[in-house]
């Protein structure tokens, strides 16, 4: 199987990443690299540290040891202020969308511009309308996040993450908690964003349908490490027992749980 990343400089590289919370070891030596323009899906069990791994990529969490390179720059030793420049390259969609609930949809989506204040008001408004159109939510500018359904919130969250045309977009469980039809539309949306904006995307999910649809390459996180990496087809056809169980959704013997 392809170890990933031969030739070309990776946009994103993780080396020997270790993280524990208290005495609970979550990641134990994670290594991988992601090339520019790739669409990578990280799969793994719930509670297996996928979201924790994703948060390390953008510096929301600091590892116990290991390195995270963004465009060849190690972001682990950076402080919050230095990270701001790095984060301009990123957009991130949170599991619960994490919309600012005191603001309207338009204010949420335009947040990145409001802080910069580099663009005139009417241009910002036009951009907001454009990006809301792109996520299939035209005309919702003046709604509050509390008036939106779960799927709509994720769309707004995505609009907020992509409006400033980031180079890398991170998705934390984009389809979790949504019905299959809405999940499918979110998947299509992610694919559309990837194709139209030409971004590198990293999707964390345990939804195998969306993994198959979105992943040019799939990494599987198992036992605190990247257990296997390969194309969607390779993963789905894999004979490895651990991978098979995950793909087919079969529980292991009971000792795992009790």
């Amino acid at each position: 199987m392809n170890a990933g990343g031969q030739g070309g400089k990776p946009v994103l590289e993780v080396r020997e990443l270790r993280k524990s919370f208290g005495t609970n070891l979550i990641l134990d030596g994670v290594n991988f690299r992601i090339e520019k323009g790739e669409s990578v899906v990280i799969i793994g069990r719930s509670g297996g540290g996928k979201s924790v791994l994703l948060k390390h990529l953008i510096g929301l969490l600091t590892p116990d040891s290991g390195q995270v390179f963004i465009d060849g720059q190690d972001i682990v030793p950076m402080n919050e202020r230095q990270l701001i420049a790095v984060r301009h390259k990123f957009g991130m969609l949170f599991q619960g969308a994490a919309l600012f609930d005191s603001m309207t949809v338009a204010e949420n989506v335009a947040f990145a511009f409001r802080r910069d204040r580099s663009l005139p008001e009417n241009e910002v408004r036009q951009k907001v309308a454009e990006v809301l159109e792109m996520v299939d939510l035209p005309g919702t500018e003046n709604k509050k996040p509390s008036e939106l359904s779960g799927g709509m919130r994720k769309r707004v969250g995505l609009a907020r993450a992509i409006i400033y045309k980031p180079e890398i977009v991170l998705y934390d469980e984009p389809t979790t908690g949504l019905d299959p039809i809405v999940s499918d539309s979110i998947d299509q949306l992610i694919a559309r964003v990837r194709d139209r904006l030409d971004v590198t995307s990293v999707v964390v999910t345990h939804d195998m349908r969306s993994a198959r649809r979105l992943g040019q390459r799939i990494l599987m996180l198992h036992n605190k490490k990247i257990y296997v990496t390969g194309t969607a087809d390779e993963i789905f056809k894999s004979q490895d027992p651990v991978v098979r169980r995950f793909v087919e959704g079969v529980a292991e013997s009971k000792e795992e749980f009790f």
Partner: protein
Amino acid sequence: MVKQGKSMIAEWLTGLGRITLLAQEAFTSLFTFKVAWRDLLYQVYFIGVKSQSVVLITGAFTGMVLGAQTYFQFHKVKMDTATLAVVAVSMCSELGPVLTGLMVAGRVGAAIAAEVGTMRVTEQIDALRTLATHPVDYLVVPRLVALFGAMPLLTAESIAVGIGSGYLVGVYLLGIDPVYLWANMLRYTASSDVVIGLIKSFVFGGIVALIGCYKGMYCGEGAEGVGRATTEAVVFSSITILITNFFLTMSLGQVLHPT
């Protein structure tokens, strides 16, 4: 027991360290950061304008009670006309800033901790960070500036209302001679008393903002975490205000009233 004590001390020291770092970050940002006027105005409105009713009622009734009680004691030694002087000095240098501080800690400190804490548990603070915004710039600085500005004004209001209501109670309910009452107040109240009060209120404003933001930003998970952060913000800022007040009285007294 020993182990528990050790971890408690460790926790306390960690908290102290974090809040110091937060203060450092906030003050650096204060001097380098371009102000977001809209956020600042909203905070000034919420923290300053909306706190007035609470602060005014506190000031008025404290002034009234203080006036009446002082009169009851002073009447025995025929010092009736010194009543308002006592009210004015204690309102200016102690009761005005402390009571305003405590009321604002209860109203604003709780609101800050709850708001910031909810943002933390719903990942909104992480979202801010991914949008290349420093949470201290966006959340802490406007609140800190608003409190720095609002607290001295609120305190001044409360002092004025306290003295005024003490005067009214003295003159109209207790029948003290208004001319001597007023003259004695002016004679025994120095402008340094007012300055002490305003300096104190400025410091208390910083305490309420920093402890409220700190408790919110490091709040525990879920609704319980937010609830605890809110309670702790009020309790810790109130206690800090009372303790700080003692040291400020001692040190400012030395500086401004040299004997």
